[in-house]
């Protein structure tokens, strides 16, 4: 244990890792604080760079950029009422109300302080949950993996803030994309339409870059430019945060726990964690009437929650290769590329690398406090950069980055295509996150499904016979039936309107 820890320290204390961590932190802070550029996009655009780094440095960039970007989204949320990332959308109104009351320092300070606390809590959960789960996961066969993947996909559709039918459809589209290529049980070209470029299948990373980055530039073409942040001087940022920590101890802990749970659930990420925690904070608050008027309580809980979900999102990713959210989906791609294939054995064979990941999460969250304060103070300068100077650079990064992944131009075509697909889907209420999960998990789901079918000689029964498999199957079935029940209930309610209370 101590030896592994020392090894982990040795792994991360190289210049390459330190520089990568710092550079990615600054990058994450800037991208996250620019409205319209999400944390997922920041991470996706980093992937081509990680190709050329050592495994630990590559993971360091992903960890640092995603952690910083989630916090940095709070900055324009508080100053402009425009969330920098979707994860800050839940409480942007509240934070902006605080700024108007003259409490911008408190709102932003709460953002940076409780984000760091949440991030560290999330990391602890990763350290505590992952190794024992790995023990259990060692006995999993393809049946369990199939149900687990199925459950993950269903979760992704349940938590989407849109019609569940559309979310399921989006997931199927993603799975269909994953069908392309010759990497299937028969090894025959499938849906390649005679194009050799499609033989290798559609790479998830260019697809992600298209869906999250190109589609965003497309949207920017049609939306008005957000106003620049007014210049202002800030007082002490961290003043009063310790008092808040003591006062809202319960809320903070609850936010951490909710964030961790939602992070572990496949497909549900930081934005979901923030929405749920904010609603929860309001529900259980002693003074719910203050919410919406610039009250810090909800900020504490939701800010702690969204950062906690980032680290715990790595639990299913590292154990099963099932991403906890879209950022983890990208991280899985990087892990595979770097020879750290997700799976329960990772925790025994590559234990020092795992410890290195924990350490990097903790360092990134500690680093967030000083860097975040600097960023807040510089925000009014950095965020004055007009959109018309940032989007072109993003376009170039999309083109070069997707080319760099395979050193061929087909990657750029993929990015452009998925830009259009992502844009059209999002415009019509199909959640792209569900599709992304389908793309990332497709091959694994199919492998688990078909291998299980071959083992069982085409019979469905063995899918339910093993004990853990049966439990997972029941959960998965519940996830399928739940929206149907909800829908029926809604219909019944509408047919018989509630009687008016007398009086």
């Amino acid at each position, binding site marked *: 244990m101590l030896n592994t820890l020392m090894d982990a320290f040795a792994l991360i204390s190289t210049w390459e890792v330190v520089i990568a961590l710092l550079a990615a932190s600054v990058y994450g802070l800037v991208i996250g604080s620019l409205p319209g550029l999400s944390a997922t996009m920041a991470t996706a655009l980093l992937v081509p760079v990680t190709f050329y780094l050592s495994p630990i440095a590559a993971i360091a960039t992903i960890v640092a950029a995603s952690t910083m970007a989630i916090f940095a989204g709070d900055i324009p949320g508080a100053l402009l009422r425009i969330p920098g990332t979707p994860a800050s959308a839940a409480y942007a109104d509240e934070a902006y109300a605080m700024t108007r009351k003259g409490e911008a320092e408190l709102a932003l300070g709460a953002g940076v302080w409780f984000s760091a606390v949440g991030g560290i809590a999330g990391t602890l959960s990763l350290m505590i949950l992952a190794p024992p789960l790995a023990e259990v996961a060692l006995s999993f066969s393809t049946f369990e993996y199939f149900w687990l993947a199925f459950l993950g996909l269903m979760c992704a559709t349940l938590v989407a803030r849109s*019609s569940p*039918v559309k979310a399921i459809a989006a997931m199927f589209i993603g799975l*269909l994309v994953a*069908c392309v290529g010759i990497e299937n049980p028969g*090894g025959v070209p499938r849906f390649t339409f005679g194009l050799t470029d499609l033989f290798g299948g559609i790479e998830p990373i260019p697809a992600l870059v298209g869906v999250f980055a190109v589609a965003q530039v497309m949207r920017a073409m049609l939306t008005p430019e957000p106003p620049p942040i007014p210049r202002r001087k800030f007082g002490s940022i961290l003043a009063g945060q310790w008092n808040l920590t003591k006062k809202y101890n319960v809320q903070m802990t609850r936010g951490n726990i909710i964030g961790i749970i939602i992070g572990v659930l496949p497909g549900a990420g930081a934005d979901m964690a923030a929405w749920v925690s904010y609603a929860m904070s309001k529900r259980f608050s002693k003074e719910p009437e203050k919410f919406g008027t610039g009250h810090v309580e909800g900020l504490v809980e939701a800010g702690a929650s969204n950062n906690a979900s980032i680290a715990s999102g790595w639990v299913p990713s590292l154990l099963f290769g099932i991403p906890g959210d879209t950022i983890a989906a990208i991280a899985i791609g990087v892990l595979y590329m770097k020879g750290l294939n997700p799976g329960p054995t990772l925790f025994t064979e590559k234990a020092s690398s795992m410890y290195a990941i924990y350490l990097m999460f903790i360092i990134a969250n500690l680093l967030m406090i000083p860097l975040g304060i600097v960023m807040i103070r510089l925000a009014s300068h950095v965020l004055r950069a007009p959109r018309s100077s940032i989007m072109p650079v993003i376009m170039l990064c999309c083109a070069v980055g997707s080319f760099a992944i395979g050193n061929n131009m087909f990657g750029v075509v993929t990015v452009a295509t998925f830009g259009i697909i992502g844009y059209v889907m999002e415009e019509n209420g199909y959640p792209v996150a569900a599709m992304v999960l389908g793309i990332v998990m497709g091959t694994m789901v199919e492998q688990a499904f078909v291998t299980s079918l071959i083992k069982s000689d085409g019979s469905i029964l063995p899918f339910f016979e093993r004990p853990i498999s049966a439990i997972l199957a029941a959960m998965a079935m519940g996830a399928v039936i739940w929206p149907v029940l909800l829908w029926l209930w809604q219909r019944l309610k509408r047919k018989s309107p509630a009687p008016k209370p007398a009086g």
Partner: protein
Amino acid sequence: MRLPDRVTGSFLVLLGGAAAYGGWLLPPVPGQPVGPNVFPLVIGTGLALCGLAITFGIGSTFEEKEEIVPIEGGEAKAPPGKFYGLRALLPPALLLFYVAAADRLGFIITAALIVYATATALGARWKLALPLAVLAPIGIHLIFSKLLRVPLPIGLLPMPW
């Protein structure tokens, strides 16, 4: 590009049907009941069913109406023209232009054109767009070609490094 659910739903029915049929046609693994054909068959059927449900408006009650955040202090927006929506297609079109032209023109020139076009489309004046179009490609070239050794096309204008 907001299409009625009927349109997107019907499209999904077609897509799912095509996928299921395409899967059906694939040869199975010799001596096995299942092979590469099963998964597309299942997915395609599921997709077609979802498309059908969407066409008939099932589940639309769950959709939240999009909140429009009013932008304070902004001037009245000009009414969008008939082809305003097509502007959204500019970014993918520029990427395809990159695919077509980069090998011949080289990275620097193609990238400069892309940057200039994107910046102008987003409302930048030439005073901003022109220096950006010169500097951004050089910067990206430095990072990707020099530092990360990505073989970017040289074309007409080779860089001195």
